[in-house]
């Protein structure tokens, strides 16, 4: 926790966390419920982007920008996993 963080930034960060957690819950609902496999893939991709946003917003609370590296690597792996799952879906269609 950064003692020099100003009041509006800390309050806005907590409110932003609340919004992002609500979005996480919606996304998990779609991940469990999702009628087809591509719906679940979209939900997983979205969860990765939400985690990126949480990592970015958490640097404002700690005052230490080291979490941005986590966000960068997360963006890379999220893109790779989305592309791999999309290729898998297409390959599966071509076989059947």
């Amino acid at each position, binding site marked *: 926790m950064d003692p020099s963080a100003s009041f*509006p*930034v800390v309050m806005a960060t907590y409110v932003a*966390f609340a919004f992002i957690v609500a979005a996480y819950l919606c*996304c998990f609902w779609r991940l469990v419920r999702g009628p087809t496999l*591509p719906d679940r893939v979209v939900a997983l991709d979205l969860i990765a982007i939400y985690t*990126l*946003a949480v990592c970015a917003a958490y640097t404002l609370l700690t005052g230490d920008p080291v979490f941005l*590296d986590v966000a*960068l690597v997360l963006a890379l792996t999220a*893109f790779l996993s989305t592309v791999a799952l999309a290729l898998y879906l297409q390959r599966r269609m071509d076989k059947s």
Partner: protein
Amino acid sequence: MIEDLQHWTVAILLLIGALFIFISGVGIVRLPDFYTRLHAATKASSFGSGLILLAVALHFVDAWTAIKCVLIILFVFLTAPVGAHMLGRAAYFLRIPMWQGTLVDELKGQYDLERHTLSSDSGQDADPETAKPDQP
């Protein structure tokens, strides 16, 4: 004074970004079929995370942090459309059903799903009502 301005700008950018992320979460639950959910998930969430990263870059007045934030924003804005396009393409190949209120499906009857070829002879096997709504 100028620090107050910076803090309030950071807070407002953060709140708008979180609001866009929340809108994407609402969209992925409420929208009726896969393609519209893909539309909600990709654009709103990448714009929201971009705004949050912009707030982080404004909060730390530091060149290296700003470079990292701009790098992440550029990467997300480049890769989100590519991933969404690949997912939508795979879903179309898997014949994921569209919402019954869908008006235009320009590939309907024009695309050979076995050989992955696109034919352009309009009117022969395309449904004229759904494929060409603007031409009599």
